[in-house]
């Protein structure tokens, strides 16, 4: 028995060492080079900085191009929060009807949900529609796009979770004379809190990290998002790799915080949605 436990310990240590080399060292690389002086970082390496200047570099990145990074953080936050609010409310409503009312019509809706997961968005025609609606290059247009692209996954998560909430509750509220929207918003939605947290965590990370869609639908320097700053800085900072790495570091902080606080929910929610289907 003791040898078995010792073997688990040794194997665990080997696995930790391997995971450290493969997964952690690249992030240390970012940190080290974000702390270097300009010339030192010209060709980024694992050599430690002669003296750490994380703070100076941070200030320099934030001030670059007229505080563009702050504007980007603002825009990304507005898009993420706006899209999440709509996704939670609208997505839960669809998941609720989809789970509670099996019918032919619902099979059609379910088909669209699955299509939304698979079909790649047709980008140029989407720009054409956005222009027609006056939503191209606007933050609220971007919010609605994120909602359209995030709905399928959100609906699937809610549908799976709502099946665990007994119908008796709906019926009791119905007998008490509640209207359908009252049943949903007062009785059901509050009970969906665990999966709502999952939706918020998973979708906020994917919207905050989205690069492709802002690149297409939100051009223009007044509309930058954090991922776009990274892309812009990649060409601007070729000679200042320390600032580029500081920018990567700053953009990684929000997901890192989310990860630290919500690790459990991410795991629970991802698996619930992914395996139950």
């Amino acid at each position, binding site marked *: 028995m003791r040898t078995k436990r010792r073997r*688990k*310990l040794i*194997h*665990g240590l080997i*696995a*930790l060492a391997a*995971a450290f080399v493969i*997964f*952690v060292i*690249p992030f240390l*690389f*970012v940190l080290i080079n974000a702390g270097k002086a300009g010339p030192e970082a010209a*060709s980024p*390496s*694992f050599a430690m900085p002669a003296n750490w200047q994380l703070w100076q570099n941070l200030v320099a990145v934030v001030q670059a191009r007229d505080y563009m990074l702050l504007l980007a953080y603002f825009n990304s936050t507005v898009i993420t929060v706006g899209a999440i609010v*709509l996704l939670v409310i*609208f997505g839960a409503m*669809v998941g609720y*009807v989809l789970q509670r009312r099996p019918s032919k*019509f619902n099979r059609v809706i379910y088909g*669209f949900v699955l299509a*939304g997961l*698979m*079909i*790649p*968005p*047709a*980008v*140029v*025609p989407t720009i054409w529609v*956005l222009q027609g*609606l006056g939503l191209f290059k606007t933050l609220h247009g971007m919010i*609605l*796009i994120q*909602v359209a*692209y995030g*709905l399928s996954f959100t*609906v699937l998560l809610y549908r799976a979770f709502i099946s665990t909430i007994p119908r008796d509750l*709906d019926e009791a509220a119905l007998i008490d004379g509640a209207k*359908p929207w009252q*049943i949903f918003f007062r009785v059901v939605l509050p009970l969906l809190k665990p999966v709502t947290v999952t939706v918020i965590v998973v979708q906020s990370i994917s919207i905050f*990290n989205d*690069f*492709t869609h802002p690149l*297409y639908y939100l051009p223009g320097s007044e509309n930058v998002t*954090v*991922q776009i700053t*990274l*892309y812009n800085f*990649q060409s601007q900072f070729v000679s200042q*790799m320390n600032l580029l*790495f500081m920018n*990567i570091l700053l953009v*990684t902080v929000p997901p890192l915080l989310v*990860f630290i606080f919500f*690790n459990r929910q*991410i*795991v629970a929610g991802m698996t619930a949605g992914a*395996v139950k*289907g």
Partner: protein
Amino acid sequence: MQMKSPYPYWFVAPAAVIFTVLFLVPTAASFWFSLTNWDLFGFQFIGLENFIDFFSEPFLIKGLTNTIIFAVLTSGAKTVLGLLLAVLLTSGLFGQGLLRSIVFFPVLVSTIGVGILFAEMMHPTHGAINVALGYIGIDGPGWLTNPKLALYSIALVDIWRGVGLATLIYIAGLAAIGNEYYEAARIDGATRLQLFWRVTVPLVRPATTTVVILSLIGGLRLFDLIWAMTRGGPGFSSDVLASVIYKQYQAGFYGLSTAGNVILFALIALIIAPLAWWFNRKELDL
């Protein structure tokens, strides 16, 4: 008399409007626009010319074949590595929880950040990977500068980034397998290898379906990682459909770009639909 349902369909309406206007309409319109010569000044119906162009231009067809190679390679690797890692990380190893977190963390980091980071680490002369290889006497290749290698280097980074999600899904799938199967097999004298092949692999099939389909769709649609690392270069050696679509859009060839979109759509349908059907049928056999 039929009572009015407490689950009214207008609940679906707000989501349906957004989804229809911003997703279904553009998708439907793409079939029309892919048949046009569409630029900044207007469009003109040209039939299948965009598609003929697409399949006769070597650099465009390169994007198509690269897309398939990339998707098959990365999803295959994520499936195999994900299952092996999940088995390892549910075996009661020391530091198991920490290991799971470490493997999963790259999933959350922005792809564009990961792309820039690895583009630096894969630099042929001063990149950290080749410097490290140099210490043990290996002359590292030009990961991203060698046209024969660039696509595979990006695939490697994509596997690095995405294997955590596959692992997570497999961990959930493994948790759903009852211990009694293993006990029964053990009583019958099964070896560990037999346990893995005869019990684990068949019984995690739902998770396998999810991992394969998710990673294939992701691989076929991938854009940001490739754009951050090579912009499809050197030459067109690491171009995929998504980067071709973006390049044609940038160049103002909207019709051709949209045709690329339609091809991507068809490719996903052709690969995913039979696969999903095959997986589901197998599931019924059990």
